[in-house]
Structures are given as C-alpha cells and as structure tokens.
C-alpha cells in the first residue's frame, strides 16, 4: 500500500489518468476511427524527430508562464495577467528587434530584458490597484489582458506593419535579434536553456531564499505574516513584478525563437495554460518543466491526431479542465487519504507499544 507522503503524487497521476480516459471516451463517442485517433494522439509525438521537437518547442513558453503563475499564485494573488505580460513581451521584443539596430550578441539580450521589464510593469498594475484601492486583482488583470491585446494590435498596425505582406504582420525580424536553433532540423532554440534556468531560479527563489519564504508565508496566512512584522505590500509587489517579468521574458523568447515576424493578432493562451501547469506542479517551479512537457505532449499529440482523423484537437481542452478540477477538488480521494493516515498512525502505535 501507499505511504501517505506518496499520496499526492498518486492522486495527481490518477487525476491525469481519469481525465485521459474520459477524453478517450468522448473520442469513442464522436469518432468513426476512435482506436486510430487515440493511438495517433498517444504515439504521434514519438513518430518522428520533427514531431517530438514540436513538443519541446511548445514546452518552452509553458515553462515560462508556468513559473510566472507559480510565483504570483504563491503570494495568494490571483493575478491572471501572465497572458498579457507574455503578449507584451513578444510585442516589445519585436519593437526592439525591428526599430533599434544592435550587434548580434547584444540584440536578443536587450530585446528579452526589455520585454521582461514591460511584462513586470504590466503585471504590477493589478497588484498596485489592489494595494491602494482594494480592487480585485482578478477582475482588473482580466480586463488588462484585453487592453494588452488591443495595444499590441495598435502598434502592429500603425508602426510595425509590413504593407507589402498580404496579412496583418510586421516586417521580417533581423537575424541579429533571433535566437539560434540548437538542434539541427528543428526549431528548438536556445530559449530552452533560458526556460530551464528560469525554473531552477524560480525554485531557489521560492523555496531557498528569505524573500521567497516570506512570500509563501504571506500567501498562506496574511495575518500571521503581518503580525510577524513582514512588509506584506513589498512582498506582494515583488512577487507580481517577478512573475510578470518571467512571463514577459517568455513572450520575448517565444517571438525571437519561433517567429520570423510579429503577427500576434490574438492572445495566445499560454497564460491560461499556465494555470494547469501550476496546478499540476503544485506551485513548485522545479516540477513546472515536467508539467509543461506533459501538456505540450498531449497538445501536439492531439494536433497530430486531428490531421489524420476526424477528431478536432480541442478535445485537449476537456482533458485539461478535468485535470484541474480533479487535482484542486479537496474531496477527491479524501476518504482514501484518511484511511492511509489512520493506518500509518495505527502501525506506529503498535510498533511503539511493542517496544
């Protein structure tokens, strides 16, 4: 039998399994070739180097927003602005890339840092509003995401637009600013290392630094933190600035690594995806790459499935929703956990009694 300390891992694994099984049931209901569809979804990403590379490419932005949201949520700030920070990060990287000529080595660094700073400022707005006016950071961050989108559309249409191109898109980004591919024949770029370093940094910050400790404490129990003499306002502000910075860097890296032009006319949704990554990783940035890999894998799998069968890839949205619900639902398996804890207590009492 399980130990109660392993319970959470077991519960997460079971949640994923149930969500996948339910999604497969839906596929069976709607598809004429369900077995083939499911096989394509599960094994598709492994069928070629290029397809597996797609998984790694998709994992990169998810790591950034996942770490970002883990930090912001740890301070108990339900700031959903990672979406907007990511978008603005990409936008600013494009502006720097197209409008500020620089030499090869410095150009991407400047673009990414400025993208990160923009993301930080953006994500701090809901926190500042909350601190000074008590306005709900959830609602204001949701509104701000739309503002970020339309601001991006405005700058794209009026300042970056390549009028010779048919669709609404920017001029070609110069080579000097782009992130180089590290695996030949794929788009896996150097941003992968930046993402993994960010995850390690996020872990060290949240779990090994004094500031991170204060942040988690004030997130778990604001009153306790306040009476212990912590400066809650500073802690909250720093957490949101840092979270926004990481999401902004993610947007910049995504643009410079994966795109030839800036053409984001809609929000890309990585900020929302981050919520499932954060839920799976239990707000621990060290587990974020793993969760991001899983999500990227089923996404790419579903994409491959939709190309050769009659099932559309949005089936993954259903899988995701069920996973979030099962993991967050406190009552799910709570009876079983209770049994495990009670059994361990009994065993311990028996062994102590025997001594």
């Amino acid at each position, binding site marked *: 039998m399980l130990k109660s300390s392993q319970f959470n891992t077991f519960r997460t694994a079971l949640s994923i399994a149930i969500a996948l099984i339910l999604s497969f049931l839906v596929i069976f209901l*709607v598809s004429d070739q369900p077995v083939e569809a499911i096989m394509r979804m599960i094994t598709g990403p492994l069928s070629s180097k290029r397809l597996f590379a797609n998984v790694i490419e998709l994992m990169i932005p998810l790591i950034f927003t996942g770490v970002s949201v883990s930090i912001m949520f740890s301070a108990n700030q*339900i700031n959903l602005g990672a979406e907007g920070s990511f978008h603005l990060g990409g936008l600013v990287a494009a502006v720097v890339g197209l409008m500020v000529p620089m030499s090869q080595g410095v150009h991407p660094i400047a673009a990414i840092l400025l993208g990160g700073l923009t993301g930080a400022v953006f994500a701090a707005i809901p926190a500042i*509003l909350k601190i*000074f*006016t*008590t*306005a*709900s950071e*959830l*609602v*204001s961050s*949701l*509104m*701000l995401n*739309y*503002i970020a989108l*339309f*601001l991006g*559309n*405005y700058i794209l*249409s*009026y300042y970056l637009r390549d009028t010779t191109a048919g669709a609404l898109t920017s001029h070609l980004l110069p080579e000097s600013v782009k992130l180089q591919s590290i695996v030949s024949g794929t788009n896996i770029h150097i941003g992968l290392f930046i993402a993994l370093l960010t995850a390690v940094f996020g872990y060290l910050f949240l779990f090994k630094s004094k500031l991170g400790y204060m942040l988690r404490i004030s997130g778990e129990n604001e009153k306790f933190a306040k009476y212990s003499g912590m400066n809650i306002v500073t802690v909250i502000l720093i957490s949101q600035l840092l979270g926004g910075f990481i999401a902004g860097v993610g947007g910049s890296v995504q643009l410079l690594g994966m795109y030839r032009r800036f053409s984001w006319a809609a929000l890309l949704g990585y900020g*929302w995806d981050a*919520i*499932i990554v954060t*839920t799976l990783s239990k707000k621990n940035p060290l587990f974020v790459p793993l969760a991001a890999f899983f999500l990227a894998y089923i996404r790419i799998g579903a994409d491959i499935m939709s190309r050769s069968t009659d099932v*559309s890839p*949005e*089936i*993954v*949205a*259903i899988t*995701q*929703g*069920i996973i*979030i*619900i099962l993991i*967050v*639902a*406190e*009552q*799910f398996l709570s009876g079983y956990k209770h049994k495990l804890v009670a059994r361990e207590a009994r065993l311990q009492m028996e062994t102590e009694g025997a001594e």
Partner: protein
Amino acid sequence: MSITEILLSPDFLFVVLRVTTPILFATLAVTIAARSGVFNIAIEGIMLIAALVGVIFSAKLQNPWLGLLAALIAGGAIGLLLGVLVLRLKTDAILAGVAINLMASGGTIFLLYLVSGDRGVSSSLKSLSLPNIAIPVIEQIPFLGTVLSRHNILTYLVFIMVVIVHFMLYKTPLGLKIRSVGENPHAAESVGINVHKIQYIALAMSGVLAAFGGAFLSMGYLSWFTNGMTAGRGYIGLAANAMGGSTPIGGLIVSLIFGIADAMANVFQTGASLPYELVQMIPYITTIAGLAVYSLNRKKRQERIINK
C-alpha cells in the same frame, strides 16, 4: 455630426440598450451567485456554451424558442455542475470557474466542428434569431420610439429581469435565505436552512441568467456563433457586480455605464476619429477605472467607520 450630437442621438441610445443587454444578464448572474456566497467566474464560459447551444438547437429544430430553451437548460446545468465542484468536492471556486471556462472555449470549437464541420463561425448552420419587437404606442413617439422600440425580446426581458431579481432577493423567502446563506452560512444553518441546497438553487439561477446573455449574443445581437464571442463580457459582469455592491439596481446602473462605453467604441469605430484598436480598449479601461474608483471609495468609507 459632432461627438455630442452622436452621443445624444436616438440611434446611439438604442445601441446602448442593445450592448448593455449581455453585460446586464452577466451582472445579474454574478449577483445572485455572489449573494449566496459563491464567486462565479464561470459566467464567461456558461455564456459561450449557451451561445453555441442556442445556435445548434435553433438550427436543428428550426425553432428559436426551443434553441433558447436548450441554451437555458445548458446554462442551468453548468451552474449546478459548478455547485457540485465547489460545494461537494470542495474545489476552489475560482479554479473550478477557470477550468469550466477553459473547457468552454475549447469545447465550443470542438462541438461546433462536430456538428457543422466548421471551425470558428457557425455559418453553415441555418440557425434562427429571437424576434425584435415593435412596441405599439411608443413606436410612434419621435425620439423615444427610436430608442425604445424594435429591440430584441431579450433586451426587454433583461430590464424586466432586474425587477424580478430585485423582488426575488428582497421580497421572497427564497431571497432572504440566499442573502443569509451568503452573509453567514453558519447562522443560516443554525436556523434550519439547508445551506448547500440554497446555494445550488442560486447557482442554477445564475447559470440560467448567464445563458440568456449568451443566447442573446448568438440569436439576437448576431445571428450566428463565433469562437470566443463573449469577449470578456462575463468578466465585465464580475466587475459590474462588484461596483454595483452586489445589488440588481446597482448592477443595472453600472452595466449601463459599461454599455455606454461599449456603444461609444462602436461609434468611434465607424467615425474613424480614433484608431479602431484604441477604441476597442474603451470598455475595458472604463471597467478598470470604475472598479478602482469604487473600491477606493469603499475602502475610505470603511476606514472612516473604523476610526469613529
């Protein structure tokens, strides 16, 4: 025409009432749930699903009323589902709402493709719209007739709904129970109220109201479904409810303000005096500014009470 002339024209006021409709339905939906003590962020997703369900059923059954009915049933059912998640499984209400919204935005694309083979727009479905209604006498009155007549039936309904929800909350035993459960569930329980049952009822009503708003978008405002057509109106409802102090009348006033902002975006869009992209921001900026001002006032009021 100058801006003031446009803003005071009957056509503009007509548009205000029209674009206020979905926001006001969303606001009332948030209000009922909030009064029972549940933060219902799933309104956005419920509206989106209801918009699609209405289109599909009105097309398949060739009857807009049955389409509306199906949308309302779907909305109520998702409201109850949220109840099961939050009340029974003890899921965090915000994350449960986010999960429902994620499933709605992907799930509607999935369902639309399944039913029509289309991605994005339901153009191949021959769906029907709910009727616009000309009000006999009022229609003849010059200015007023243009503003008030020939609206979609759901636009009239939403203003009636404000009265109904107000009456329900403040003048009926059910409303009293909802308010007491929301304010202090333990006290409510101690006088024999079944707290969860009341919250389930409130969430079902909340889902039905949100579904009206969604059905209006795809069967009145437009006559088809497009991906993400709610465009944050459910979230604006959250803000409007907060600013309206969780009351139907307050929600009505704030929704009208947002409706004016939304209608102004429409006017400037055609007037081309401002870039379209900036005009699109107006309703969202208004919402944030309004929320900040309201929250600051409330904070000051509370501080004054404490300092007395």
